[in-house]
């Protein structure tokens, strides 16, 4: 599903140049449940943004579902984001003047699905998230957990192949964190490749594969086999 080779990314400012990703090699197969961990500044969110085509990379190769993601036109990138990827963000990123139903239905607007049809589909997804009663509430009337479930419903509405979640529980309490992780685990159980960036061990432990980043390189990888986690040191600290 996802294959990246020698991925590099730097940010340049007037004062300095920051080499954030220093040659990442990573393969994630369809249906995997993966978490990416690391300290602040280790490059985990940058990696997720590149995987989600929200950001570009400087060097290396990134194949998504067999297609090389490089030098895409804005239109192509938008199509990939709309059809292949569902995003879940720490700060939810709901549009504050649209109600829950409209937020969930929005990706279908860009797929030119009729208003009536997209509202029916959005309501089904909200129902799955247990939020049918809250469909016509504005984001500021929802709790953090409800907002995140609306965001997950929005991510799911286009039937994506991959869910990318950047600190999805970062703004939630422990009980709500459990609820959200249940939802994400359930989605992965339906065969959707799920990648979560987190710094919470309890969240990472819920996944089957944990990738540890350090200073822009993969340091170790932990895989769960029959409920037991086994950790492997990355060769050269950068390649698996």
């Amino acid at each position, binding site marked *: 599903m996802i294959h990246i080779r020698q991925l590099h990314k730097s940010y340049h400012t007037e004062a300095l140049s920051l080499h954030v990703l220093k040659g990442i090699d990573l393969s994630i197969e369809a249906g995997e449940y993966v978490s990416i961990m690391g300290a602040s500044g280790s490059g985990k969110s940058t990696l997720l943004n590149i995987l989600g085509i*929200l950001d570009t990379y400087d060097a290396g190769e990134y194949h998504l579902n067999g297609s090389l993601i490089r030098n895409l036109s804005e239109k192509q990138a*938008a*199509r990939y984001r709309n059809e292949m990827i569902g995003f879940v963000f720490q700060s939810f990123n709901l549009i504050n003047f649209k109600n829950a139903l409209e937020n969930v239905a929005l*990706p279908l607007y860009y797929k030119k699905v009729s208003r009536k049809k997209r509202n029916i589909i959005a309501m089904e997804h909200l129902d799955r998230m247990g939020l049918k009663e809250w469909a016509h509430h504005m984001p500021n009337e929802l709790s953090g957990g409800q907002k995140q479930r609306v965001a997950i419903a*929005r991510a799911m509405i286009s039937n994506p192949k991959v869910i990318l979640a950047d600190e999805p529980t970062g703004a939630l309490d422990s009980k709500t964190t459990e609820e959200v992780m249940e939802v994400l685990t359930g989605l992965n159980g339906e065969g959707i490749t799920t990648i979560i960036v987190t710094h919470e061990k309890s969240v990472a432990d819920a996944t089957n594969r944990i990738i540890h980043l350090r200073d822009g390189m993969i340091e170790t990888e932990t895989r769960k086999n029959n409920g037991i986690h086994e950790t492997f040191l990355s060769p050269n600290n950068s390649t698996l």
Partner: protein
Amino acid sequence: MSDQLQEIIDTLKKNKMRTALTGLSVSWGIFILIVLLGAGNGLKNGVMQNFSSRAVNRINLWPGTTSIPHNGLKSGRNLSFTESEVALIRNEVEESRQITARMNSTQTIAYRKEYGSYSVRGVMPAYFDIEKLIIGTGEGRFINRLDMHEENKVIVLDKKIADLLFRNEEPLGKQVKVGQLMFTVIGINSKRQQWGGPNAYIPFSTAQTIFNPNGKFYQISFTVDGLTTEKENDYFNESLRSLMSHRLNFSPDDQQALWINNAQKEYVETMKIFGGITLFVGIIGILTLIAGIVGVSNIMLVSVKERTREIGIRKAIGATPMAILKTIILESIFITTFFGYIGMMLGIGLTELINFVMIQSTNGKPVTDEPQMSVFTNPTVDIGYALFATIILIIAGVIAGYLPARKAVRVQPIEAMRQE
């Protein structure tokens, strides 16, 4: 398209404050523009109206007193006209068109028990066009050539005199006593005098016979054609003075022997000043338009800039840059057109209202002897120009919305989403 329109209307409805503020700014800009243009037009129309009350190509001649000895004659001679000077001008002055001799006599005009002392003018038929008198339908006629030829005792009254003498009676066809003679009322002039009191008009030939047996009179008015520049008018005045000096036997250099009032020359000079006023009004219009463009552009710029994060979110869930741009531009067009139209209509409404009030107050005002010079008339704006200005502001608003939107859709979605 209807789904997109619905989406735009939803967005505008749900951002009531932003929509209202943007709309208010657009409406206000266009409203002020229309009102200022109206004020400029009012000034322009006021000046024009003052000229239109009498023929602008009018020349008035008054004989004076000689100040230079000439051909053995002493200075200090009082000059006067006779009908032969009228014929001279009619035949010898190429540029002359309509001509009238004028003589004034103050007489008591009486109808039954009502009477008053008024200026009675002996004039020729051309006086009507030269002074732009107004005789409406059903209000009779002016003096004609037959009246002149037969020295008819007919009279045209200014409306004020008719109202005072006849009260509620119909004046046409009635006999009024002018001095000791009876005259038939043949017409009512409803043009109010800009200067002086109301007048009555009788045929010049009749006036000469009755009031002026020596045949001398002191004013000739005529219109001219083909004098468009100040220089041409100066030359014409000199030629006219020279012609009249031969006839009346005074020195052509004697400025006090003949007074020439060339309205055409004044008109040309005033038009020069008026050109300055037009330029001034034009500059005000352009500056107001620019101020409007800046105001509308600014609000659209701010409005789009605060949506950068929303643009990032929309991109993240699959919106193409073109789809976002299209939405923002359509929103800009919708807001600027809708609110611009409101501003334009309010501006036109206000200028029309002011015009209506001005007309009403003029109509309701009794006929008076006060001068009726106006500096501000019909402060309305041509609808074509109002539409043009509104369209310019709409285009400016759309461009101002487009530029930051284009910038916002070009940045990576993750960058846009970080904006607050």
